[in-house]
């Protein structure tokens, strides 16, 4: 291993990187590849359904296709895409040099990578999962001759482990790594939504993790969890899945909402309207998202009391979501709107998400839902929120942040083609599905007979799907040609408001030459502008320079191949578990590899030869306990090293700052410190407002 940071080159540099930016790019690249995979699956689905009695694929192949299409799009496209933006921009948005636990971050990515590989491999190893992305019992347990649903349960399991690790990492990062002075409420909205998402995953994934273990055990050890005839209960699975599944859908949409909340202000030259309300509605959605899961079970026979309760909780999620929509309208209202591609995608997001949301509310009307459930009307609903919402939002983010990541702008003219093609194709594909569903076409059907009146709209939908494919191809072309022909962006191409634009493009490895001190939200905008007495924006005479070089050397975490190695070990473990009993040999080897990776990791210093005598690098001692696969524990374990490192950075920054500073600035600093204090009172109120009553209970316990 190279002694100093960033010596490794080429592929190896990517395998061993612990830089949150590179890991973010890895997530993003994987997401795009899987988007094409899941998209091609979708195109085959559409071909099969274009005409009645379609004969493009067999029923068996079709069931694998729609199951993997959904699994891919949800777990291997939207989640990693959100993870990509969070990884790359969360530290930048909060003025940090990295996440709290860089190597844990790498481990999360590599586990995700092998999880995706594992699921996709199944196509070539006796067939892909074919029980629907919801894997309903007892169907998922019925055929144990094939290993398809074993791939599904183990694949989702390991992807979940990766997400929990990442969530712990992001939550800790937000709590401890914010730039000095930045209160929670001053965090950019995207950072806030990523923060809420981390909590949603943290509390919903362990539930489905248990469910997935139960599926695996039922299939392989003959346990009776979901075996109705053995005394078990298939409905239990539906609860466990949707207790995770519904929070999950907000996991998919909140990051997009965060992106839109960053893009709209920038391209309206106006701050986000009702910032605090947008943030709190996000938190509210997070909380309420845990109280509606049974709306996926309205035909399962929960009994009228439960059905009525969940109908009401479900409806009222529309309220905080509406608050967001209306505040976005308030943001562009009275602004000066530039229709750059990111803005187009954001406005498209609002328009399309509202449609999907409204159809969602019609689902909450239980009697009506007994007609809509498991029909194409539901398929229409969730594609309007997932594609019209999440995907359009993520594309907005791609066009918005591409220059910060690559240093070059994506071509605007091609971008507009991309948007309009996708917008039209999307509505052509999924708009008709509303009619199909209400006219009686169930989902998950490999074909439909002539004479039910489904022919016309299905053909339209298929044509639309190919328009979408074309738009995606246009995007890929735009991305490729930008690498050479793209216009050089400069640090702040959009006249941005938040900290990521306060450093040069592409982002330097150290993120910021000096760790900024934060007094307000939209700190970068306030560095460039002031408001006159009527509140009009006025450019400051002296503009800040984002392209400063660091005045002291900054120590960053060294590359390490141990995270990737440990992840590979886990891959071997689950692969072995598919093929019991012989596979146990492979699993055993996997355990060995995993332990090797974690042990090597625990003895490897995070920053090599840190000259900083003031901070004895404690890494060697940090991770003795990594014999375990306890994500949280590792988190805790390698935190120390990272923090030791973060300290050196912090000081480097500060010293540099103080050296160059004039008298006035020092006052300013004191002022900041005070801000810092009250800031933190807010901090805790902000974060803990939820838990106050818990607080009391706890005291009660003590006395």
């Amino acid at each position, binding site marked *: 291993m190279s002694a100093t940071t960033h010596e490794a080159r080429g592929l190896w540099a990517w395998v061993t990187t612990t830089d949150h930016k590179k890991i973010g790019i890895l997530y993003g690249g994987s997401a795009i590849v899987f988007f094409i995979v899941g998209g091609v699956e979708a195109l085959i689905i559409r071909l099969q359904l274009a005409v009645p009695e379609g004969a493009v694929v067999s029923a068996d192949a079709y069931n694998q296709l729609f199951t993997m299409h959904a699994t891919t799009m949800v777990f291997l496209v939207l989640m990693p895409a959100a993870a990509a933006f969070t990884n790359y921009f969360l530290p930048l948005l909060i003025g940090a040099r990295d996440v709290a636990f860089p190597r844990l971050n790498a481990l999360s990515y590599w586990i995700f990578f092998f999880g995706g590989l594992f699921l996709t491999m199944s196509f070539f190893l006796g067939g892909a999962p074919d029980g629907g992305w919801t894997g309903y019992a007892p169907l998922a347990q019925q055929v144990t001759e094939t290993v398809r649903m074993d791939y599904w349960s183990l694949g989702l399991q390991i992807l979940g482990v990766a997400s929990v690790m990442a969530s712990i990492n992001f*939550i800790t990062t937000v709590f401890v790594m914010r730039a000095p002075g930045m209160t929670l409420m001053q965090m950019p909205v995207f950072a806030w939504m990523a923060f809420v998402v981390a909590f949603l995953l943290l509390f919903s994934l362990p539930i489905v993790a248990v469910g997935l273990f139960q599926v695996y055990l039922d299939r392989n050890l003959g346990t009776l969890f979901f075996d109705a005839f053995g005394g078990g209960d298939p409905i239990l699975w539906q*609860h466990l899945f949707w207790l995770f599944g519904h929070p999950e859908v907000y996991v998919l949409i909140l990051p997009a909402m965060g992106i839109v909340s960053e893009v709209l202000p920038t391209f309206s030259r106006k701050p986000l309207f009702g910032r605090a309300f947008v943030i709190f509605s996000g938190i509210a959605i997070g909380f309420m998202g845990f109280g509606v899961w049974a709306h996926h079970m309205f035909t399962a026979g929960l009994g009228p009391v439960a059905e009525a309760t969940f109908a009401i909780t479900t409806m009222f999620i529309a309220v905080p979501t509406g608050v967001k929509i209306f505040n976005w309208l308030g943001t562009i209202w009275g602004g000066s709107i530039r229709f750059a591609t990111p803005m187009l995608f954001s406005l498209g997001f609002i328009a399309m998400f509202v449609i999907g949301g409204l159809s969602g509310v019609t689902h909450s009307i239980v009697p009506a839902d007994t007609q809509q459930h498991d029909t194409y009307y539901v398929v229409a609903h969730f594609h309007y929120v997932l594609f019209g919402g999440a995907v359009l939002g993520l594309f907005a983010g791609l066009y918005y942040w591409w220059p910060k990541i690559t240093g070059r702008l994506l071509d605007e003219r091609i971008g507009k083609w991309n948007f309009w093609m996708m917008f039209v194709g999307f509505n052509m594909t999924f708009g008709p599905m509303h009619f199909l569903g209400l006219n009686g076409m169930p989902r998950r059907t490999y074909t439909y007979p002539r004479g039910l009146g489904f022919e016309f709209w299905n053909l339209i939908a298929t044509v639309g799907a190919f328009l979408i494919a074309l738009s995606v191809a246009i995007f890929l072309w735009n991305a490729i040609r930008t690498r050479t022909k793209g216009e050089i962006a400069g640090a702040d191409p959009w006249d941005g408001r938040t900290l990521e634009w306060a450093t040069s493009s592409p982002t330097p490895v150290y993120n910021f030459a000096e760790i900024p001190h934060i007094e307000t939200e939209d700190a970068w905008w306030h560095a460039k502008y002031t408001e006159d007495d009527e509140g009009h924006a006025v450019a400051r005479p002296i503009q800040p320079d984002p392209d400063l070089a660091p005045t002291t050397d900054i120590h960053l975490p060294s590359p390490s191949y141990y995270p990737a190695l440990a992840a590979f070990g886990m891959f071997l473990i689950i692969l072995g578990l598919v093929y019991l009993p012989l596979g146990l040999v492979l699993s055993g080897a996997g355990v060995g590899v995993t332990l090797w990776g974690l042990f090597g990791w625990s003895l490897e210093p995070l920053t090599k030869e840190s000259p900083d005598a003031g901070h004895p690098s404690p890494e060697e001692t940090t991770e003795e306990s990594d014999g375990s696969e306890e994500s949280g524990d590792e988190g805790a374990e390698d935190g120390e090293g990272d923090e030791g490192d973060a300290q050196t950075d912090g000081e480097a920054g500060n010293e540099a700052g103080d050296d160059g500073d004039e008298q006035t600035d020092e006052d300013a600093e004191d002022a900041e410190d005070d801000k810092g204090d009250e800031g933190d009172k807010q901090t805790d109120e902000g974060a803990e407002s939820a838990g106050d009553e818990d607080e009391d*209970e706890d005291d009660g316990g003590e006395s």
Partner: protein
Amino acid sequence: MAEATHHRPHPTTKDYWKIAVVLAVITAAEVWVTYIPALSSVVAPLLLTMGAAKFVIVVGWYMHLRYEERLMKNLFLIGLIATPILFGAVLFTFGVLIGD
């Protein structure tokens, strides 16, 4: 550095032993009540309270949660509170809670 966050003095070694004795006594009591037919009607609530007491003691003193800042308290408590609420609802739809 950890001390910086502590407001009440940490327990001493002696305190820890005392706490252990308390825990042991409660455990004994728990087992004891299950053998008393007279208490069979109230045994469930009794056990739950005693279990909860042990739980709080370990979390509060041995895990020092009562000495930590609210942030950490609440990070843990959100999960702790959410669990019974969510699964209370689930078991309700199965009629388990009413059942007995």
